[in-house]
């Protein structure tokens, strides 16, 4: 209609193809969710395969699951939930127009908790698995006490390492994203008007948290931790 609309002052980060900031924000979240739907299917293939083989070799999967350290699994779940909280608080800080130092603090806290998760996973759990000969392809030893199910326990550990490994890879990608966000926040790029990068990265980080919320029971708790009659 007029030149006025084109050259009207607008908030930083506003792209002209959108009606207003609200529509732009919603389009961004929707796009991220479409990506996350593909991620659900990406992990979903693994979960479906896990369900099939758990059905076929239930005893072996229960046997393998009891060999994992449930204390580290539970502690890591809490750590990851904590990192989701700090991520949500970082977005909240931008939304509420808080100082950029507060956004930076929460983003750094998120990274620290994420790093703590990977440190516990790699340095304690995977290391112990290596020493106990539980890594298929790296001197896996089938123990006689597993009985007839023993031959399929390595299959369970293939799932364990592949699923937790893929999850860890997503977290490492997340560090790259969080690092970039921290620099952007430090430069004062986010405000209560514009915080789309924080919002969509938060969606990604929470998604990785949800994957772990399912991996924890499926891998650590599936066999039960109670003493079974007739089981050593």
């Amino acid at each position, binding site marked *: 209609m007029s030149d006025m609309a084109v050259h009207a002052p607008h908030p930083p980060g506003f792209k002209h193809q959108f009606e*207003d*900031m*609200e529509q732009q*924000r*919603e389009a961004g*979240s*929707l796009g991220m*969710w*479409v990506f*996350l*739907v593909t991620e*659900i*299917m990406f992990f*979903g*293939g693994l*979960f*479906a395969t896990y*369900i*099939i083989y758990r*059905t*076929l070799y*239930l005893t072996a999967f*229960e046997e393998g699951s009891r060999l994992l350290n*449930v204390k580290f*699994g*539970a502690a890591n*779940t*809490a750590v990851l*939930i*904590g990192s*989701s*909280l700090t*991520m*949500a*608080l970082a977005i*909240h800080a931008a*939304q*509420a127009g808080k100082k950029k130092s507060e956004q930076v603090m929460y983003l750094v806290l998120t990274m620290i908790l994420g790093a703590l998760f990977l440190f516990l996973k790699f340095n304690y759990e995977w290391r112990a698995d290596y020493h106990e000969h539980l890594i298929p392809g790296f001197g896996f030893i089938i123990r006689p006490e597993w009985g007839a199910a023993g031959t399929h326990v390595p299959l369970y550990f293939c799932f364990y390492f592949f699923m937790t490994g893929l999850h860890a890879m997503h977290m490492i990608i997340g560090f790259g994203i969080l690092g970039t966000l921290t620099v952007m926040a430090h430069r004062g790029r986010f405000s*209560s*008007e514009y*915080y789309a990068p924080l*919002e969509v990265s*938060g*969606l990604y980080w*929470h*998604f990785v*948290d*949800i994957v772990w*919320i*399912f991996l*924890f*029971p*499926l891998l*650590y*708790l*599936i066999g*039960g*931790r*109670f003493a*079974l009659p007739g089981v050593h």
Partner: protein
Amino acid sequence: MSGHVVPVKTYLGIFVALLVLTALTTGVAFVDFGDIHTGIRLIEVIPLNTVVALAIAVVKMLLVILFFMHVKYSSSLTKIVVMTGFLFLAILVSFTLADELTRGWTPEAGGWNTALPTILPLLRGLF
């Protein structure tokens, strides 16, 4: 306009709920709830512990999606896209299981590997 701002109190409440549910799911793993006996081939035994653990995981997932991921405050379009993801996952899992669990229901058809003793010598002859 700047989206719906969720109060910090809500985030902290969800965080505490998630921690409690994590402790609960870990705790109940030490209690034997017994098994469901279905009488269906390949899934004769379903440990109730698995059902309980997954039910708690679904509740935790819903808390994260609705509050941390702001889906509760998002447009209907976003909500539909989110549900689509889980719908397709359900199709993937249920159709694959429908195949896997019903193999052997038709005795004359047999599994793919019943043909191996016939096929393998033929293949060996080729190479």
